[in-house]
Every structure is written in C-alpha cells, then in structure tokens.
C-alpha cells in the first residue's frame, strides 16, 4: 500500500507547505501589522484579538469550521469546485488555506512589534523630504524592521511545520499532498514503529530548538510578544 511510505516525501511536502504559507502570510500580514502598529482606531483591540485567536483556540475549532467551509456543499467549497474541478478538503491548497489562518498571529505579532519600534519622527522626516507614505514604509520602516521580518518568517515557518490537529481533521493523510511529518509521526506511533517515531521526533525537537535559538539570537534587543 505504501501508506507508511516515504518519509522524505513528507519532509519535502512539509517544507513546501511551510514555505508557501510563509510567503502568503508575508504578503497578507505585512499591511495588517503596519495598520495595527500605527492605528489609533477604537476597534483596533478587536482586530488584534481576532488576529490572536488561533493562539488560544483549540485546533479542532478551526478544523471543524474548515471542514464545513471546504465542503462542496458550502459557498466557498462549492465555488472552488466550480473553478478548479477539485475539492479544497484533502488537498495541498486546502492545507495552505488552513495554515495561513493557523499561523497568522506568528507573522503579525512580531511584525507589529517591529513596526511599533520604528520612530515616528523618521517617518515624518521622510515625508517632509517628499516621500509618499508607501515610499516611507519601504525605504525607512522596512529596513528598520528587518529583524522583525526575519523573526516573523522563521516563526511562521516553524509553527506551520508543527501543525497537527487541523491537518488531521481536513487533510486525509494523502502522501505528497497532505501527509505532513506530524501526521507521519502520529502513524508511526499508532503502528508501534517506535524506532522511526524516535528518529522523527528527535529531528523535530532539534529543528525547533535551532529555529527558536535563531529567533532569540536575532531579538536580543528587540522584544516581541510571542514567548
């Protein structure tokens, strides 16, 4: 059956999922983080709360809603089937969708903190020299927030690698499509293949340690909100 199949397929798939998710979030979360860092609107705390929801919600909540949302009987799932001919559930693109939601706070929060640390005076100076707000953002704020970008991307990538509950619910364990390494590890344990489980678990511990060490080294002076 090849179901327990190729571990390397799962590793490549997981890296691909984490990479695509990080890129999508980089594009989507940067404007949001910038707005959160600069806005003084009364509803800003509510937007912040929504952004942070995936941190506290059980993955089963997200998994349950996504299962219903991805269903061909739902508006989104149905439209997706009409456009692409395939379903969102049990597909790579469905997992990207899920991961973008699941890892959102891990991109937004470090970016927001980095943007908040950008001195308003510098932006004012740029604008008095004739820079548009967008120019000022790209040429002044972004370079200053570089470490924030790095932390955000690394954490988003790592957190997506660590995704399990949502994938278990909407993935369907398809090799090369949705069978990421956390699922492979789960199946190793369930089938009593403890030697392989040990190897993979250790690999993930080492990977996560290296990732977190990198982030903390990067941020020795720049504090951000995710411990």
């Amino acid at each position, binding site marked *: *059956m090849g*179901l*327990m199949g190729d571990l390397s397929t799962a590793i490549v798939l997981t890296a691909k999922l984490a990479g695509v998710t990080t890129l999508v979030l980089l594009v989507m979360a940067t404007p949001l983080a910038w707005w959160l860092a600069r806005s003084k609107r009364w509803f800003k705390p509510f937007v912040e709360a929504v952004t942070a929801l995936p941190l506290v919600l059980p993955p089963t909540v997200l998994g349950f809603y996504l*299962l*219903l949302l*991805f*269903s*061909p*009987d*739902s508006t989104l*799932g149905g439209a997706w089937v009409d456009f692409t001919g*395939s*379903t969102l*559930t*049990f597909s790579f693109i469905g997992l990207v969708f899920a991961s973008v939601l699941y890892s959102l706070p891990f991109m937004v929060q470090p970016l927001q903190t980095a943007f908040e640390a950008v001195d308003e005076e510098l932006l004012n100076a740029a604008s008095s020299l004739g820079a548009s707000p967008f120019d000022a953002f790209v040429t002044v704020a972004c370079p200053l927030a570089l470490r924030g970008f790095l932390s955000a991307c690394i954490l988003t990538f790592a957190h997506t690698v660590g995704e399990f509950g949502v994938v*278990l*619910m*909407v993935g*369907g*364990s*398809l090799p090369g499509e949705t069978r990421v390494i956390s699922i492979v590890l*789960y*199946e190793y*344990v*369930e*089938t009593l293949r403890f030697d392989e489980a040990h190897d993979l678990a250790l690999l993930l511990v080492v990977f996560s340690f290296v990732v977190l060490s990198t982030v903390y080294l990067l941020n020795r002076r720049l504090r951000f909100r995710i411990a």
Partner: protein
Amino acid sequence: MRLLNVVVWLVLVGSPVHLRADEIVVATASNFLATMNALAPRFSAETGHAITVTSGSTAKLYQQIVHGAPFDVLMSADQAHIDRLIKEGQAVATSRVTYARGRLVLWAGGKPLIGTPQALLSDPRWQRIAIANPAVAPYGAAAMQVLAALSIESRVTARLVYGESIAQAHVMVATGGAQLGVLSLSQVYSADPSTWVAIDDSLYSPILQDAVLLNRAAQNKAGQSFMKFVRGPKARKIIESFGYGLDG
C-alpha cells in the same frame, strides 16, 4: 483528548440486590461506540454496576492501556490488538470473547445509492472516497482487501482519502469532503437502507471484534459480569440491531 469524551455514569444507589456496586471503565473502538452507548445503561440497570465508556481508535486505546490508562475492558475493533495484550500479559486470556463481526458498506452521505460495489467504486464520478487508514484501522485494511478482491485498486487508489479511524471516514463523507465512503454498517444502519450498499462478506476477511478483561480488573466483579453480559442474549440482540454479525 478523546479520553473520556463520552461518559455514561449511572449509579444505582440503594438497589436491594447490589448493595456494593462496582464500577468499570470500558474502552471502546470508535466503530462500536454508538452500540456501546446503548449497551451501557442496560448493563447498569441489569447488574447495578456503574459503567464509564471511553472511545478511540483501537490502536490508540491499545497505546493508552500499555501506558497505564485506567481501563477495565477493551472492546477492540480487531483480534490482533487483543492477541498482543494477552501476549504481553496485560489482559486476562480466559476472559476473551468475540462480541461482534463488522460489516462493510458503501455510503454516499445519505443520497440514494444504486449499483454494485464494483461499479460504484470504479465510477470516477466519486472524486474522493474515504476509508479508514489501513495502517491503523481494521476497517481500512478490510476496505483495501475489497479493492484487491475486485481487482479495481488501480482505478480507485488515487481517489482514496484516509481517516484516522472509521469514525473520521464517516465524518469525511457526512461533511461532503469525500463523496463516497467505505464504512461500517453500524454507522449507517439506522438510516434508510436505500442510502447504503452492502459489500459482500466474501470480499474481505471477517472483521472479528474481540473484547477482553484487562489485568487491573481481573478481580473486579463488575468487569467479570460485563464480560458475561456481552455474551448474553440481551446484549447480542442489541449488537445485532446495530448491524453487526454475531458468529465467529
């Protein structure tokens, strides 16, 4: 955590016959959960013992038992895990009983279903077909045997999706993510018979489901009477009413 996600807690205080009722925790394979929930109150009413039901995939329950979970009885979805528990000295070998024989059906989420299993499974109209993961679930392994017996693996395998248990495969079809599922008859038995198509027993080796008393309950009166109850006519009638076979 799936542990103790379903709790049936019936204590009959003051029953004249059973002044000192015992209690048991029964770990139940997910395919049998609905049946177990029907059996539990009967058992309590009949014996005065309290019973708590917990469920999960057989493989997961096995793991939990090996790591010291406080279960008294395992209602497995297969015989292999019971073999292993007995061999490892975790269960009372003499208490072992085959309590049900599982049956496979095709189900399409409640829509009327017409045709032979061979024709239905081969039909590319069903883009996604949910089965339980054959690596961990007996019903999944049986589903793969059916595909092999019908020689339609090459036409079906690319469209399969795998639930971690037969219960998840059921959810996949119920939510529309998969259009067809190879499920346990017990999951759809109460529905309109036109919504499911039975798969011939000869296409897969019998899914014999065994139960055993675990070591910690070797001296537990409630555990012993539960094992007797499961073999009794009342329990067998209930088990049969959920679509299970009884031979074996």
